[in-house]
């Protein structure tokens, strides 16, 4: 399972401040720590700075530069704004690249889809249109169908597409855990070459012991067919379970990855 490190996200107050203050050291540290903890990709999200709206492009250009100084890991550019994504790519030196994300909303699907096709990026596609997150599996799959048809038409391969089945808090609607898991299953059945990705933390919103809930959901999602997770790589228990999940779902021949991680002391019970 691919791990996309989630920490450099402006919706986190301390990160937003570091970005606003152009605090290189803090942000390089976040990038370096996540890489060292085993992240395969580093997500970068600048949000929009409080009270201003047009410096997002300059900000992400700077942030991409900062993160690349700290690590060689490829980046996941986390924005739904084509202008910000383009700005992020201006000085991007990496080979692999994730663009995170599009929905079935036609205008952005067209512009960001074109960008992803041109850069041969992997593209995260949320299983939704431009309205609220659909609460049924069928509606989410309908959005996936629109997205896949468009991306194939503009020359992308199914293997470049990472569908996000979407996760709603279980605290608010008890049926939502299964909706997400079944959506993953169905996506894998319909588009065997496509991959799946999701952020874990939303499932546990409003509950105590959130990390426990996130980790359990990670394992269930791995069985349903999850290929990538957006999580905090510094959560050693979650990272250990990523190894366990790969092993238990037949992705780790002779359990070598698990045993190697155990020997290096990174497995935490």
């Amino acid at each position: 399972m691919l791990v996309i490190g989630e920490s450099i996200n402006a919706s986190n107050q301390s990160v937003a401040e570091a970005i606003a203050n152009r605090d290189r050291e803090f942000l390089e540290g976040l990038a370096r720590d996540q890489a060292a903890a085993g992240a395969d990709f580093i997500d970068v999200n600048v949000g929009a700075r409080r009270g201003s709206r047009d410096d997002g492009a300059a900000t992400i250009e700077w942030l991409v530069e900062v993160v690349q100084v700290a690590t060689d890991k490829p980046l996941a550019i986390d924005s739904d704004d084509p202008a910000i994504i383009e700005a992020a790519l201006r000085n991007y030196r990496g080979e692999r690249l994730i663009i995170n994300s599009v929905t079935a909303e036609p205008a952005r699907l067209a512009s960001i889809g074109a960008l992803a096709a041109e850069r041969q990026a992997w593209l995260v596609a949320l299983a939704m249109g431009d309205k609220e997150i659909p609460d049924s599996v069928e509606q989410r799959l309908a959005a996936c169908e629109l997205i896949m048809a468009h991306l194939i038409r503009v020359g992308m391969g199914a293997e470049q597409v990472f569908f996000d089945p979407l996760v709603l808090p279980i605290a608010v609607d008890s049926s939502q855990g299964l909706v997400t898991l079944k959506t993953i299953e169905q996506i894998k059945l319909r588009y065997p070459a496509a991959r799946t990705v999701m952020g874990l933390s939303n499932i546990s919103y409003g509950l105590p012991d959130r990390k426990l809930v996130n980790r359990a959901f990670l394992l269930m999602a791995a069985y349903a067919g999850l290929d990538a997770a957006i999580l905090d790589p510094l959560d050693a228990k979650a990272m250990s379970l990523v190894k366990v999940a790969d092993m238990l779902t037949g992705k780790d021949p002779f359990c070598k990855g698990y045993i190697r991680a155990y020997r290096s002391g990174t497995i935490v019970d």
Partner: protein
Amino acid sequence: MAEDIIKLIKENVVLGRVNRDDEGIDEGMLGQPGVSELTEKALALGVSPVDIINNGLTAGMEIVGQKFEAKEYFIPDMLASAEAVGVAMEILNPHLAKSGIKDKGKIVVATVKGDIHDIGKNIVSILLRGAGYMVTDIGNNVDPQAIVDAVRDEKPQFLGLSALLTSTMVHMADTMQALRENGLRDKVKVIIGGAPVSEEFAKSIGADGYGADGFQAVRIVESLASAEDK
């Protein structure tokens, strides 16, 4: 007798028990009457609907709010209690209409443009309804103009705006501006909420209040309402 049944209603709101089939937060309650049966029974005994609301439902939700703030209760607990209150209000509404009692006021709520996160807004709506307000939810990703139209048409006393993203909270400022341009700013009290929003931000865009969570939102609305009455 009336006092006993109101006390039971209050306790069952705290336990989040809609009816007798509801096991509630504590076990061992199955089969005992829940909020809906107790409300029916109270009406049959001649207890006034206002008494049921103030000393049963609202008093119960106040305890739920305290437990939530003390982190003893979690969101599902709160939603269960709010649902019990909602069911009781449905039973009571025809009686309230008959006795000519006014509701406490009207609130339009929306998640602002570009933002499709509606969970926070929905929780606030549930709690406001539980507190006796008429809530009109105009959805998420709502354009400033559509919010202006709703304020003009519905004539609410309050407008609640929600945003979860740093990239969409700016549309709260746009919405405030649109209200001003349409001469509606002084017709409605605006409260805002959502993860990236703060008291400071509320002040900076000229909103009337900020609620960090659902219960605070209710409290702000209550305090603005009583300030208005004076």
